């Protein structure tokens, strides 16, 4: 019995209308699902195209650019079914979750028509150039410079922590266009063709030994001014709008992924003779946290477009870190070994240490919760 069987599903029934939507997508997935490793780029690209051709991607996006105009509830159901089917992740995740929503919110009509359909189909892969070596949590201190040169900018600087940087065709890049203005008001967002002369990318190996992320270097890269998303010096607002509705989906999706890890820990504990009382109780407490995250997502609903998502992110990172460590500790002496395969508890433990740093550190997010949700005075 899987712990995520319908019998133990924490969520009660949806409306009939939603149930029909669920059934339709579930049927499609069953007929079309493929399996592919995360590293199998071609298979993930094909999978995205398949979803696109069948209209099962970009659910919340406006229909004139290839979206479906679905409700948030339907998106949650969609995510549940994706998790249930355990299919591969579409290749263009940054395009779908970050660049696309930013263009929808801030792009010109021309830009929407130019970029959005190819983001959905996976024809053009996007990456995100926000963080810099000296601008992490303090993003507004970014220094990558864009100097005006006729109809173009000349961009020079370095970005870091860029996922998919080696695959990407385009980058949503934050640059400083006016160093004289207050720091939040001199930033511009650009769509940069990654094949432009002067762009170079270097992998950035992380503590697991893989290189999920890269560093990007821009050396006098010529970018047409018409590639600016929103007016010059309004890029901070674009960055703020990057996470809109997708933030709710990222929250919900990650809470579902957590359920998967929980299930696999339970499966292996069962297969290998159970847990001692301390580990069993700890695991039960983590189960409560995992369920509570999913329930919070449902209860918060559209509040997740805003600052409530910070609560989910902090709690998710903590729960995953506890879960991964519990899985590793259970191995006893074997915890000291490093198996080759991705998906081992060793790998999971190492990777999970990044959870409370990436996408907003736990410290920054607690500050956001305190000031924006609880209304405490700003520093």
């Amino acid at each position, binding site marked *: 019995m899987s712990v995520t069987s319908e019998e133990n599903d924490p969520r009660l029934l949806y409306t009939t209308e939603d149930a029909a939507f669920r059934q339709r997508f579930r049927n499609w997935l069953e007929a079309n699902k493929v399996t592919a490793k995360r590293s199998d780029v071609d298979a993930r690209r094909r999978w995205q195209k398949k979803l696109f051709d069948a209209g099962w991607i970009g659910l919340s996006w406006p229909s004139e650019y290839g979206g479906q105009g679905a409700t948030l509830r339907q998106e949650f159901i969609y995510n549940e079914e994706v998790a249930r089917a355990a299919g591969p992740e579409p290749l263009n995740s940054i395009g779908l979750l970050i660049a696309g929503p930013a263009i929808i919110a801030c792009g010109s009509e021309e830009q929407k028509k130019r970029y959005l359909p190819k983001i959905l189909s996976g024809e053009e892969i996007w990456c995100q150039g926000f963080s810099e070596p000296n601008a992490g949590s303090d993003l507004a201190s970014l220094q990558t410079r864009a100097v005006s040169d006729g109809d173009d900018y000349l961009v020079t600087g370095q970005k870091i922590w860029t996922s998919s940087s080696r695959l990407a065709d385009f980058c949503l890049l934050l640059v400083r266009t006016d160093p004289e203005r207050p720091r939040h008001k001199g930033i511009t967002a650009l769509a940069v063709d990654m094949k432009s002369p002067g762009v170079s990318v270097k992998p950035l190996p992380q503590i697991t030994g893989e290189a999920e992320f890269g560093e990007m270097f821009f050396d006098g890269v010529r970018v047409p001014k018409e590639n600016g998303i929103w007016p010059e010096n309004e890029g901070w607002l674009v960055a703020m709008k990057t996470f809109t509705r997708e933030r709710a989906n990222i929250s919900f999706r990650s809470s579902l992924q957590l359920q998967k890890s929980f299930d696999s820990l*339970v499966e292996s504990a*069962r297969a290998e003779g159970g847990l001692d009382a301390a580990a*069993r109780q*700890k695991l*039960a407490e983590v189960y*409560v946290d995992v*369920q509570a995250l999913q329930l919070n997502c449902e209860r918060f609903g559209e509040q997740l477009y805003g600052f409530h998502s910070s609560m989910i992110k902090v709690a998710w990172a903590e729960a995953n870190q506890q879960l991964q460590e519990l899985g590793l500790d259970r191995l006893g002496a074997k915890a000291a070994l490093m198996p080759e395969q991705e998906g081992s508890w060793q790998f999971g433990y190492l990777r999970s240490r990044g959870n409370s740093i990436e996408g907003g550190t736990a410290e920054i997010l607690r500050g956001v919760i305190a000031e924006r949700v609880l209304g*405490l*005075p*700003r520093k």
Partner: protein
Amino acid sequence: MNFSLTEDQELLRRSERELLASEWPSAAMRRMLDDSGSASHQFWLKISETGWPALMIPEEYGGLGSGAYDLALLMEEMGRRLVPGTFLSTAVLAAGALQRMGNEEARRNYLPGIAEGRVKATLAVYAPNSGWDLGALRTSGGTDGQVTNGGNDGPVTDDGNEGPVTKSFVPDAAAADLIICVLREGDDVRLVVPHDPKITALETLDPTRALADVTFDPAEAETIGEGAIDALQRTIDIATVALAAEMVGGAAELLEVTVAYVKARRQFGRPVGSFQAVQHRAADMLISLEKARSAVYYAAIAADEQPERLALASSMAKVAANKAYRFASQQAIQLHGGIGFTWEQDLHFYLKRAKASEFSLGSTAWHAERIAAQLGF
């Protein structure tokens, strides 16, 4: 699942909050501590007028027949103020057991009185050897060779007859007009009302909640009903959800007063709520509170709509509420600094309530084991 409140529920919640603010302010709670029950009795009469004890009782016995979600919302409001335990013991525990296991005569005799506020009642379940594990209540009779002590932890007499039975941690027994005791009977349980029980009040950590040992002779007790252990378990599970909801209310109140305090309190020329160390604790209070609130609402909805999920959901709710209230009650004192440590502030009452509630109807470890058993790990 639909977590959203209907307009009626919103209105109800507002009127509940207003009534509690006017009828059970801190001063009333403090009066209760040394007036031998008169303040809490006045409060009981007041909420009875409003119909609260009738909430969960079926309409045919003079109740309102409401569901567990309405109960949870009311308990959350009550948890914001430190109300006495009469409501939970009478309207949830005793009324629930009567409704599910009482014989028709007993239901007719007692439920309307409870609904109208004329009868205060309680349910005695906990026995020293079984704790909150109903399956571990010992069977009486002794024909199967088990320990024969009335199932309920009294001594066995030399001739093999049942000796007196002692139930412990019985809520509000001293003030109760009706004490219903649970005895194990094979695979079932029997509800009895002892004729002349000995009630020994216990000194409690939480002075706003009374507990007692109840000792009685099973031969001198009237049987008023019986049922499967599952029926008793359901009563206990709903009470657990109600208690967890009350705990969520307590944690929510503590977070609110703490946020207000750290906004107003200034040190080093600025509000202490602008310091990161303070902000992060407050953020963690909110995170654990919201987890518990979702788990409680989910369990209440399960009780109403998907009873087969109640066992798991009630344990999830209690674990989450135990943690949230404990954390909130500790951090509230810490973030108030020295003033938070004074008797004059109410925070210590919440600290005591949180700890007492944590161990009432099953501790975190107990419910964690119950979750593990249900999920099969």
